[in-house]
């Protein structure tokens, strides 16, 4: 029973990874999320979300890029899979379609 739809945080994390593109890993994903959304994001939450997304097949990861400040430990670098892109796209399409159905008067100006 796999959930194929994306949760809100999952979607945000996926998008952030798309934005960072190369070298997306736990730390910079957490920091970017905090920066972009303006809310405090817990690392542990991000970590579990990443694992879940990988299990679902939206992400893949490789280990690389050990640095001194990490005590010589490698990073797990995440990148979006084709399936992940597809899911993001679908979710975006659903939103777009729904936006287009909202009556004009409610639409914020400029959209």
């Amino acid at each position, binding site marked *: 029973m796999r959930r194929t739809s994306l949760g809100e945080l999952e979607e945000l994390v996926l998008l952030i990874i798309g934005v960072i593109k190369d070298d997306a*890993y*736990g*730390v910079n994903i*957490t*920091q970017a999320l905090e920066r972009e959304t303006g809310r405090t994001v*817990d*690392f*542990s*939450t991000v*970590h*579990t979300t990443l*694992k879940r997304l990988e299990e679902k097949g939206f992400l893949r990861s490789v*280990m690389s890029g*050990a*640095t001194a*400040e*990490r*005590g010589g*430990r*490698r*990073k*797990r670098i995440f990148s979006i899979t084709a399936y992940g892109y597809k899911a993001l796209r679908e979710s975006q399409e659903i939103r777009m379609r729904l936006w287009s159905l909202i009556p004009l008067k409610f639409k914020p100006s400029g959209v």
Partner: protein
Amino acid sequence: MKHERDLYAPPKWAQSLLRWRCPKESLEEVEGDLQELYLYWVDTVGVAEARKRYVLNAIRLQRPFHSKNSRTSSINHKDMFQHYIMVAFRNLVRSRSFSLINISGLAFGLACSLLIFLWARDEQSVDRFHTNNKLLYRVYLRQVYDGQAHADYHTPAPLPAELKKMIPEIEYATGFVKFFRLSLQDDIYESFSVDDKVYKLKGSRAEEDFFSMFSYKLLYGTPQTALSRPESLCMSRKMAELFFGSVEAAVGKTVRFDGRTDVTVTAVFENLPPQASDQFDYLMNWDAWVAENPFKQSWGHFGTLSFIQLRPDADPVKVEEKIKDFLKTYLKGMSDNLRLELGLQPFGDQYLYGDFENGLPAGGRILYVNLFMGVGIFILLIACINFMNLATARSVKRAKEVGVRKVVGSSRLHLIYQFIGEAMLLTLMAVLLSLALAALSLPAFNDLTAKQMAIPLREPLFYLFMLGLVLLTGFIAGSYPALFLSSLQPVKVLKGHFRFSFSAAAFRKGLVVFQFVLSMLLLISTLVVTRQTNYLQYKNLGYDRENVLYIPIEGNLITKYALFREEASKIPGIKMVDRSSQFPHAMSFRVDAVQWPGRDPNKVINFAVSSVGYDFVKLMNLDIVNGRDVDRYNRTDSVGFLVNEEAVRQMGVKDPIGMEISVFGKQGRIVGVLKDYHTNTLHQAIDPVVLDVKEFLNFGTVLVRTEKGKLKEALAGLEKVYKQMNPGHAFNFTFMDEQYGKLYKSEQVASKLSYVFTLLAIVISCLGLLGLSMFAAEQWKKEIGIRKILGATLRHIMARFSGDFVRLVLLSIVIAVPPAWLAMNQWLQNFAYRIDLAWWIFVLAGIIALVVSLLTVSTQAVKAALENPVKNLRSE
């Protein structure tokens, strides 16, 4: 001031927490990420906040259900479980005969032990169902003389009331009458009549406290008043319905008792449960009965039972100590050589521990209960071993499955679960089948044991027991294949290099041997028990017990015995009529009341004294070894005595004929010496007997010898004569040989039960052997094929094939014989007269086991040997 480097290090304990709980595969990156973040936090929010965040994150990364092996635990359990069940059923169906043997063997064993445990439970519950069970005691009497102690339950009639009066710890006390005469220990059946309805029913006498002590439910009346008046009659529901149609109709009614007095129904009680060892349909007032039988008032007459109930705070040990010498005060002028002591036994113990040894309660029926519990456990073990053995043998076929499972990634634990679970599933099926079997055979089993047992479906404990049985059996049976198979190396198995190691084969052989040892033990025991029971049944007792009837002397028969004898003797089909004060087959009245010249006055010698008619010796077909029989027409013979050889030995006289003796003060001479005949059960040695001619005694039994094959006419004639002479009494009679047989009720039940159970044990063992040989035949298919091609004959193959099994059975025979001999020797010590433990019994048992097992194995051997070798060799 802290060192700068310390600032960069997050809290140690949080780090160790991470390392301890975090999944291995993501530990590295998590630790790294957190380290990086920590440094970032130190820069942005300060050390304290950074440390706090680090700890919080480390803790939040802990997931309670997120174990280190999170990968494997993510397997879907439900699907796996379904899969296991499906595989189990496929295996069941694929090897149908194996499964059938396996399940039915276990089911037989389980059913068998279930019945035995039911029986044992029922035995244990006898007399223990009373609410006050823990406070109820029986008083027993110990006689100590000549350094020996003998004990029984017979106490003086005034004892219970006096005990209650004198000992404050005793709350209630009652006497109970088990039989009227010590010399005629027969259940009490008395006649009651209402109008023209006459019934003879079983009953007794008891004192006022009786219903306050025992939990017999009163449907009408109160425990206090039920037995308080001389004319009180308490009857069972059965008796009330017999006479009046209903309990309500019986209330307060008058019933004619014994054709002579009227009694009033003062209470009606519910029919007694089958677990009451003393069964009665009515109870009457104690004092009235004692008043009617003056000799019962004496403290020196030990003829009734005494039951007491202690206060809840009383210490039974102290009470027993207190009453030990209670009788001393009441029995003046007793000989110094004879000490009489009282003892207490818990009321419920009498049924199972009713035998006395050295004046103390010892064993009794408990021997048989324990024995059969043992048998039940044996049979269960045999069945379990079977199950285990077959499962182990069959597991070879599953080796490839295990290999594949392991390659695909099953862990050892999963395999163990799977096999144990499968065994439990089979056990569950067997348990259900065994319940059905037990339920089906329960009526027959009840018949055999004379009980009314039911499967206790309403008791939660029963289900718990069955569940425990499933789990335990499943676990034991499944454990070996589970542990063994799960340890296999997949590479070897899948390449086909699979063999049972030597130890595994030895283990299986060991189980077979163990199983056959148990079967052999049962078989030998059965042979011995059956032979001993037959011996008891058919031994020449020294008298002829066939075609003899007992008719109680009561009512008009007491005064008109002579007339009855005369009339009855004329009836066609009747050879002879005589009387006796004791049942000749079970002379239980032994008393030190015989005097002769030269007797040591200090020694206690008990004689079985019986008063008989003139034709007793002829009627019983006794042999006279010395002197002559008493003669009705010889006047001096009314003071003539007959003694047996044992009596002569005990008296220690050379020439007994003509010797003057006195019995109960009656003077006379010995006219003849009888050859020893058995005076009681063969458990006991022959007692010294003194027969005394007294045709006028007001109690006893009439003996009627009928002509062989003319019983019907004799009975018809007897009934007519009896009805004429004794209209207030129902005509009832018993057969001497039947009564004799009843003495060995427990032995007979034991013999029948052991017969059935041994048969089952052997069948179960053979089922196991059959399964194993089927398995072996399959394993050896190729070998047999090659041998046949090379010219082996059927005989060769059979010998090769059966040899292994025969060796095992022979070994078990050798192992089983010594313990069997010991156990049976012990059992036979219970009998004063017993069979020899002849060597051929053991040989016979061995041959039976060997032949049966050989037959079982050879069916498979023949089948394997007759198969076309080409077929077996071609297939790969």
